[in-house]
Structures are given as structure tokens and as C-alpha cells.
């Protein structure tokens, strides 16, 4: 058991870990954590408990429940004096079918099969890709494109699979004409999964891939152009969060479907790490 008295900043350290602090609060805490042994112990516990919990199963709905629910809802809707949810439910993306005919006995409301769900997800993904395509001159949109494509083609997400930066860094040698900073952030709960090469605005970029809980984070790195001014940039494109900054002569972009606050935490940890 931990015998150290708890530092009064404990809950703040936790809030930072959960991405609930703004950038200024988080930055102030980085300094405190360096000096406070108790808070470092707190951080370790947070990381350990998260690793454990994210190994736990998520109990998803069973087909049996979906079927049962479909029947119950049809009955429930009827007893509410409303039209029951009809079999036409799976066509709700089609605007012309919003007026479903009531099914014969109103008991046929079945949930979509998992195949149909996958198809629907694919449609959404394609829609996202199409919607960003026309803005391909924009770096952010291009990164969203690249990130999505890499996620879809699972095998292209990572060209070199390694959790060790001593393996990932040399892998880039000879493939890109610069030596990108490769950082390990295990202590912060972000696991380096590997790297890949990608092309952004006709430039070759080194990409580091991290796992943050259930999210994948891509970190794009290429040499900064001398005149590229902005220091830190924060954007959201089609539900993806992007952060951009410069360090050590490189332009760094990270992108993920994590929440904005968690993305800020990731970016600040990455920048703080050496």
C-alpha cells in the first residue's frame, strides 16, 4: 500500500491524465510533476490502471438482444399509441423512405445484421473521404485522407512494427532524407506501434504511429520550411483533431479521432518528451 501522503495536486494530475485540463494548466503541472515524487507515483498508478482497464472486455450487444429489443420496441411503440418502428429501418439513409409503411403485424423490426453495419460504416468512411477530397490542397485535409487510408488498409498503417524507438528511428534512414525525432511515451500511456512513410503535399513525411487507448494517433514529421511561421496550431477536420507545431527544424502534425482535450494532452506530452 502507498504510505506517502497524497499531494493535494493528485486530482489535478488525474485530470491532466484524462485530458480535462487546458494547455496552460497542463503545462504548469508538468513542472510540478517533475519535482513531486508523490505525483509521479500517482501518474504511474494512473498509467497502470488504464492499461489494465483497457485490457478489459467491452460487452457489446448480442444479436439475441437486438432481436428481442426490436420486438419489444415494436410493442412498446404500439402501446404508446404511435406508429411502430417498421422493417424499413435499414433504409433510413434514403430520404424518400422516411415514411415507412407499417409492417403487417408490426413485429418484424429486426436490427441490421453485422454485415450491414459494416457496409454502413464503409459508406460513412467513403463519404468522409469524398468530402475531404476536393480540399486536397489543404494540408489538414490531406492528413485526414492519409490517416483514413492508412487505417482502412490495415497493412499500410505501419511499415515498421516496433515499440522500440531504437528500431524505428534507423528504419527511416535511407527512406527519408532527414532523421525524424522518434519518441517513446509509454510512461504517459501512449504506446509506440511503429512507423511508415507517407506523402503529404508532394513531400515525403515520416509517420510515427501511437496507440492511445482505443485510438490511433499518427504523427507526421517533415523538415520545416524556413518561412512557415505559426508555432502551434489546433484544428478539427471532419471530426478528426489535428495539432501542428515546429520543433528542432521539423514540422510536426498529429492527427487522431481522440477528443480535443486528449489530443492536447498527447501533443504536450510528445513535445515535452525528448
Amino acid at each position, binding site marked *: 500500500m502507498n504510505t506517502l501522503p497524497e499531494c493535494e495536486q493528485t486530482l489535478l494530475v*488525474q485530470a491532466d491524465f484524462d485530458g480535462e485540463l487546458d494547455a496552460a494548466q497542463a503545462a504548469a503541472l508538468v513542472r510540478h510533476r517533475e519535482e513531486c515524487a508523490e505525483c509521479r507515483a500517482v501518474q504511474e*498508478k494512473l498509467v497502470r490502471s488504464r492499461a489494465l482497464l483497457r*485490457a478489459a472486455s467491452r460487452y457489446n450487444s448480442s444479436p439475441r438482444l437486438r432481436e428481442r429489443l426490436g420486438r419489444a420496441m415494436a410493442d412498446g411503440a404500439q402501446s404508446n399509441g404511435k406508429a411502430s418502428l417498421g422493417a424499413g429501418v435499414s433504409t433510413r439513409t434514403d430520404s424518400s423512405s422516411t415514411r415507412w409503411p407499417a409492417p403487417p403485424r408490426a413485429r418484424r423490426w429486426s436490427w441490421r445484421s453485422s454485415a450491414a453495419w459494416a457496409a454502413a460504416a464503409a459508406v460513412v468512411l467513403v463519404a468522409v473521404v469524398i468530402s475531404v477530397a476536393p480540399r486536397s490542397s489543404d494540408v489538414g485535409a490531406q492528413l485526414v485522407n492519409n490517416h483514413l487510408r492508412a487505417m482502412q488498409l490495415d497493412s499500410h498503417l505501419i511499415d515498421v512494427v516496433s515499440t522500440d524507438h531504437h528500431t524505428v528511428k534507423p528504419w527511416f534512414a535511407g527512406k527519408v532524407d532527414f532523421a525524424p525525432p522518434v519518441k517513446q511515451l509509454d510512461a504517459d500511456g501512449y504506446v509506440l506501434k511503429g512507423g511508415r512513410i507517407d506523402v503529404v503535399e508532394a513531400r515525403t513525411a515520416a509517420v510515427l504511429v501511437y496507440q492511445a487507448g482505443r485510438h490511433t494517433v499518427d504523427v507526421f514529421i517533415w523538415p520545416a520550411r524556413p518561412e512557415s511561421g505559426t508555432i502551434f496550431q489546433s484544428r478539427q477536420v471532419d471530426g478528426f483533431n489535428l495539432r501542428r507545431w515546429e520543433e528542432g527544424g521539423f514540422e510536426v502534425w498529429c492527427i487522431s479521432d481522440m*477528443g480535443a482535450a486528449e489530443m492536447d494532452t498527447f501533443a504536450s506530452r510528445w513535445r515535452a518528451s525528448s
Partner: protein
Amino acid sequence: MPPRSTADSAFVALVETHLDSACNLARWLVRDPMLADDVVQDAMLRALKYFPGFRGENARAWVLQIVRNVALTRLRNNAPGEIADVAEVELEAAALYVAGDARQEPEATLMREEDERLVQRLLARLPLELRECLVLREIEELSYKEIARVIDVPIGTVMSRLWRGRKLLAEAAGEQA
């Protein structure tokens, strides 16, 4: 035959989107798979009934709040011991790993499967008040504000429960390592 309202299709979309979250929370709260399915079904029917009054903000928290209320009512009826008052919870939490079976396993492996079984067991032993916070934060990835809404307590309470839960879990797991 009344015309199909957009409210119906909106409700179907809402249920489809959040059904897995609902099942996960129900299962972690009541533990028993059959009971969890009953809870989800009841909760969805209740949601359907209340849906006209739902103002469309944060649907997931809204659904999970209903799931939790149904689950707690069921637990109170089926197993009154599960819902302890706060003092009991504190005691139980403190005693949890002293008497816990965590250290009876001689060697822990770092295998994922082992981890999973371990965490299932440890989490199941946590008092419900702590367990639900951990599940909502770490598995469902809700924000503090959303968790506060689902379990109807101030954000400060969410933070302290989360920390107590995480500390117990990390220390229990650490003792095995």
C-alpha cells in the same frame, strides 16, 4: 396509418448508436448477462417513452443515465446488498485488497488474457460507485462532465471516485506483479 415521424427514425438512430455502450454499462453494473439484457431492454423502452422530451444534447449520456437508473432499481430489488451506502462503500473499498484474492495467485503473467481475467475480477470486486466511474471513463471514454451527468453527482465527486477506484486497482494489480 399515421405517417412515420422523424422522431421515430431519430430514436432508432440513437439506439443503434448507443446500444453497445448501454450493454457494456449494464453488464458491468449488474454483472449477470441475462439481467443485463433485461436492464437494457427496459431502459430502451423507457427511453422511447421519454424520447419526445429529450432535447437532443449528449444522447449517449442520456441513454446511459437511463440504463444506470434501471440497473440500480433492479439491483435494489434483486440484490439489496449491492447498493451500499457511502460509509459501507468506504469500508468495503479499504478492506477489498487486504482480504482480496489478488495475492493468492503466485505468479502473475503479463499475458493479455491473464490481464483481462485479472481486471475482470478486480473490477467486479470494486464497489459499484467506483466501478461505474471507471467503466464510464476508461471503457466508454466519457468526459468528467458526462460521467457527472450519468451518475448524477458533482464533477468533484466523479474525480475523487475515479481516483479511489484507480488507486485500488493499480495497487491490487501491483501486489501481484
